[in-house]
């Protein structure tokens, strides 16, 4: 049973569901209308239109996105996002290496939530191999996914605060993110490029005492999160910059293939963790926050609420943390045998050698798997002809799809709103350009 509710209601019970601020709304539409009217009325202003190239290295574009804007005064009349500055050819690279070798490349997709990418990729390949991982492995994956979601949203929120003039937020969120990175380092050995999952399991079991540390983090994080959100949710400057800015209709959001908080902010309660559960997400209770108007403010509210829900999931997962194996034991030709066995037993040595040189052996076939990542639905479409190397691996990146609606959203907005709209989309170019 899905529990969809209004995010704004949930956050501030005394606030009306429709957070309409007549002044702002009227101003926004009249400015947009004025821009269109002016452009239509006089051909003279046509010549006065200004072409502005915003980015690729502009602080508000959060990476290497370039916005080719056409301005009529302060009003944007045309917007063309130019992507591809960070294109590395990940899909080509994937066709030239074994399945396990590609795990580090998934770190670099959404580099603000590498753990979630690792998990999505591992599950996609496991679907191809028809492999089930044991409950303990699933629980580890859920915990790291949700921690990755918190760290990604913290980053997005902090950067968004800076974009719209609320500088303090950044200091709070980065302090919390740093604590998370310490936890990631304890678990995986790396802060940023974690490369934690393997096909059929994870790189290593959770270290002694790590779950306790995560629990302690969650306990101290919740009050700080409330403080951070309180700094923004009723902040007059923040409201002026976000409410009714960049509003997207439900139908448009679906037509453009938006996913994640950007889609839910528009009022579509699609969350793959609930609707198409993977990795044992069906065992956890959590709510899916849904916006009402699809503006920048709703997208912010959804992200804020998602962090609370992630904490809920993590705490539940730690409470019911299953014992047993942390990798699929029956996956002989897929998961590497334990190191001590490799050094002492001939069979395991050969098995490990084959795994490294030829890759985990997959059956021929096609699978498509999407996981609910912090930025949206990260999909992997794998075409296998058998053997250890995919024939074709397509990465469906949520940032790419989310950005494709920009030409529609930005037209009619003020140029200062572009900064707010871009920040509220919370995209990552490493994932968009692949």
């Amino acid at each position, binding site marked *: 049973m899905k529990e969809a509710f209004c995010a704004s209601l949930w956050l501030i019970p005394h606030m009306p569901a429709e957070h309409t601020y007549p002044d702002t709304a009227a101003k926004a539409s009249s400015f947009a209308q004025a821009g269109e009217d002016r452009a239509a009325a006089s051909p003279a202003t046509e010549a006065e239109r200004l072409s502005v190239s915003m980015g690729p290295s502009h602080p508000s574009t959060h990476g290497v996105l370039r916005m080719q804007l056409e301005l009529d005064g302060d009003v944007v009349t045309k917007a063309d996002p130019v992507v591809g500055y960070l294109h590395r050819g990940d899909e*080509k690279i994937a066709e030239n290496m074994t399945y396990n070798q590609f795990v580090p490349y998934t770190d670099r997709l959404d580099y603000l939530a590498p753990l979630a990418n690792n998990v999505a990729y591992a599950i996609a390949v496991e679907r191809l191999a028809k492999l089930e991982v044991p409950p303990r492995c699933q629980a580890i994956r859920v915990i790291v996914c949700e921690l990755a979601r918190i760290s990604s949203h913290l980053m997005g929120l902090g950067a968004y605060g800076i974009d719209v003039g609320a500088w303090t937020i950044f200091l709070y969120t980065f302090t919390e993110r740093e604590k998370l990175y310490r936890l990631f380092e304890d678990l995986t050995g790396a802060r940023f490029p974690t490369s934690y999952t393997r096909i059929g399991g994870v790189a290593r079991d959770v270290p002694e005492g790590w779950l306790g540390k995560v629990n302690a983090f969650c306990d101290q994080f919740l009050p700080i999160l409330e403080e951070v959100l309180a700094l923004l949710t009723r902040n007059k400057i923040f409201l002026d910059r976000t409410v009714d800015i960049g509003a997207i209709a439900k139908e448009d959001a679906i037509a453009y293939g938006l996913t994640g908080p950007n889609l839910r902010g528009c009022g579509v309660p699609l969350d793959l963790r609930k609707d198409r559960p993977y990795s044992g997400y069906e065992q956890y209770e959590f709510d899916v926050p849904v916006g009402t108007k699809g503006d920048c403010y709703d997208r912010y509210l959804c992200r804020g609420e998602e962090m609370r829900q992630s904490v809920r999931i993590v705490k539940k997962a730690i409470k019911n943390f299953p014992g047993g194996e942390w990798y699929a034991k029956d996956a002989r030709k897929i998961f590497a045998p334990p190191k001590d066995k490799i050094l002492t037993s001939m069979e395991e040595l050969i098995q490990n050698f084959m795994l490294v040189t030829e890759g985990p052996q997959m059956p021929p076939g096609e699978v498509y798997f999407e996981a609910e990542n912090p930025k949206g639905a990260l999909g992997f479409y794998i075409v296998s002809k058998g053997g250890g190397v995919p024939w074709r691996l397509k990465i469906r990146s949520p940032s790419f799809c989310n950005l494709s609606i920009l030409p529609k959203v930005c037209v009619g907005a003020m140029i200062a709103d572009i900064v707010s709209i871009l920040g509220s989309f919370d995209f990552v170019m490493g994932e968009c*350009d692949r």
Partner: protein
Amino acid sequence: MTATADVAAVLPERFPRLTARPSLDWPAFNIPPADVPAVLGHLRDALGYDLLADLTAIDAGAGRSPRFTVVWHLLSTTAHTYVRVAADCADDAVPAMPSVTGLWPGANWHEREAYDMFGITFTGHPDLRRILMWDGYPYFPLRKEFPLAGLDTDLADAEVAGETGARVKPAPYMGGPFVAPSGGPMSKAEPRARDQSWTEKEEKPE
């Protein structure tokens, strides 16, 4: 709205030219290119597959026919199931496919990417130009004959190229993904992609 679960039963009845496609997870179909707008439109309007999750292409390799296959993945935002539809491009040399931008405006960027990477022309696309590579790039990188290392090309920026004489150079790797050369000055020891045209025994050609 028809339940999406029986799409495998409903769809072939309506479109007789449709055949089942081998799949390990979701219902999958092969259709002729001419049927693409009709089948996808029917899936969207009558069967509830309203979100175009992904659009991509597969290259079967030079010399194979049919060589290029375009694949659509649709998601139902109400029933939460996917369906995979694939169509082979009729011409292997100049592949073309009807555009679905009329059904989903979000297909715009996906089709530009498929054009950019495979050279598939989407007829009816409003603005078919490269998206990830730069305008004027002469190759289609995800075609199987395109080497992983890349090919020698002009820089995107003619002004910079003219002033510096720089070009886009192939950067192949050999052995592992990246190799750190040992010995020599530290400035040369940065891990880099290794050139396939030379080995320890042979001099690097200049």
